[in-house]
């Protein structure tokens, strides 16, 4: 199993003290060094089809070229920071984007939009030398409006689109993430994956699986050889009030909480997870994903501490 660290640990949208610094390139230049110093020699990155305004992250092709000189100089910069690879990229399709309207969305429109962006994702992943990409099965169900009434049609079209994407993916593994707020939450994912092209893998995201009410260890056993990648996420959150149905489920209306904890700070049975992955013969990428981290540098070291404790497993 290969370990990477995801840059989704950096919050670029929601306020936190000193958030504005993440717009600056020197922030990212230093972050790569911190990730390398934390003992991670590979990273995962979010993918933005359009550059985020006023932010010099390397998550879009346009910004990579404008600010980092392109893929080759970027790889050199990472190497100097101790990072040998961008292992993977991910993105979550939306229904029309923040300024769109779910009411006008069609299954073809949603799946077509996903496919269009996924093609750009694959092209960017190839340029960066990635081995996997993660595509979320859906955005939050709260944003899907009438599409939920056409769920079967949506899923059939998604399965077909994933096959077409796999034809173009070359050596890049396409993995599907089932967020706890999405249409394939929890164990529902297994039925879907049984119908999907075998070249498509699971992205087993531990916290999402647990919050949706499934046992991550059992989930891994069922996914078995179909596991394409693993997102090592942690959580203490129990969704007793079905916050997965609300708009913006990352911030439950039932009370403020941090849904995702830095690795090792939550309640996921990491020893059980690693043992199950070993049993499944998984030899792909498992990526630390400290989403919503309150202190990114501290989170890197917390994750390293948690992984060190798992070495014997």
């Amino acid at each position, binding site marked *: 199993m290969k370990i990477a660290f995801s840059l989704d640990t950096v919050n670029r*949208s*929601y*306020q*936190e*003290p*000193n*958030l*504005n*610094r993440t*717009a*600056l*390139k*020197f*922030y990212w230049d230093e972050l790569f060094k911190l990730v390398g110093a934390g003992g991670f020699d590979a990273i995962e990155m979010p993918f933005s089809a359009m550059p985020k*305004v*006023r932010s*010099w992250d390397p998550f879009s092709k346009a910004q990579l070229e*404008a*600010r980092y000189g392109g893929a080759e100089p970027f790889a050199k910069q990472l190497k100097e920071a101790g990072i040998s690879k961008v292992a993977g990229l991910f993105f979550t399709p939306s229904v029309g984007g*923040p*300024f769109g309207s779910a009411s006008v969305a069609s299954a073809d429109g949603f799946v077509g939009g996903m496919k269009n962006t996924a093609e750009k994702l694959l092209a960017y992943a190839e340029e960066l030398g990635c081995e996997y990409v993660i595509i979320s099965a859906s955005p939050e169900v709260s944003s899907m409006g009438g599409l939920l009434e056409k769920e079967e049609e949506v899923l059939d079209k998604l399965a077909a689109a994933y096959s077409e994407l796999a034809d173009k993916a070359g050596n890049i593994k396409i993995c599907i993430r089932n967020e706890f707020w999405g249409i394939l939450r929890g164990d529902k994912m297994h039925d879907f994956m049984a119908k999907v092209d075998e070249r498509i893998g699971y992205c087993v995201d531990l916290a999402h699986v647990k919050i949706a009410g499934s046992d991550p260890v059992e989930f891994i056993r069922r996914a078995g050889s179909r596991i394409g990648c693993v997102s090592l996420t942690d959580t203490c959150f129990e969704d007793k009030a079905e916050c997965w149905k609300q*708009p*913006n489920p*990352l*911030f439950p209306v039932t*009370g*403020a*909480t*941090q849904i995702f*904890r830095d690795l090792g*700070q939550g309640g996921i049975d990491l020893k059980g997870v690693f043992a199950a992955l070993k049993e499944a013969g998984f030899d792909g990428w498992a990526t630390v994903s400290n989403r919503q981290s*309150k*202190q990114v540098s501290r989170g890197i070291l917390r994750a390293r501490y948690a992984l060190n404790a798992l070495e014997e497993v």
Partner: protein
Amino acid sequence: MEKNIRYSYMSHWKDIPYREIPNFRDFYYEDKTNYAYYQSWDQIFKYHAGCGYEGMEVAPWDLFAIRTLFPDLREFRAFAEERGVEISGMFHGMNGGRFKENIPRNVEQTKAAVENVVLLGGKHLNVCPGENYADGGLDEEGILNTIECLNEMGRVCEDNGVKLGVHNEFFCIMNKPNHKRIIEATDPRYVHYCLDTAQVSIIGEDLCKFYDDYHERIVTFHLKDTADPKLPDEIRYAPFPEIQDDGHRWFWELGFGVLDFEGLFTLMKKHGFKGWATVETDGTPDLLASMAYTGYYVRNVLGKIYC
């Protein structure tokens, strides 16, 4: 004594995820960082009021997240006003108005923006009139189209009781070669000016002279300082100059740069300025510290000259 200047603070808070946090102590204990202090509008508005700011100016990209919490923007307005803060106005971008065919679209977008400003109770729509200079400057036709577009947009604003304020950016197409002409050629009944003190100075204008010359058109301010007045054209007209790779800041809190704010406030007194002035601290690594510091500065330093 009634004050002439009402101070607003520009929202650079990014998205705020909660209205209020009733379980604040539990939330804090989850990770024991200061993160918990920046997560609700209840807190943010109280910080504004606590630092002496009566207003907040929003940006259009704030509205999606605000509407997630306050589907009716009037609710957001009431929520702010209950905490002693009004929404003074909103920023807005002209979108390709240098091309004739884009004028109708800009008018429609202005209608939508003004509707939001009215729901929020704001008085100003401050408009950046164009793309980055590096994307192509304004030729004669572009200047004339920009003037026409601003007039049309301004008419929509005025009809709804909102003042359109043209807002220069030091790196945008309305710039040193043309910005005075555009101000002078637009219809003063509909098109006003939001004087961003740092942007205009970076372009190369003398701040006090510019205000003195155009005070009749200036209906509001973005007050911020800079240490880089009269920045060379080759830097301003380069691609993506706004955010520098090495973290160099074009904008500073009032008093941290080199601009003559005491001279400006003396002129504001001379011309009897009345209205909202938005203090802006984009670029700060610590919004709350900047808010508290500038709140002190406008009251205790500039307020002695004119308030």
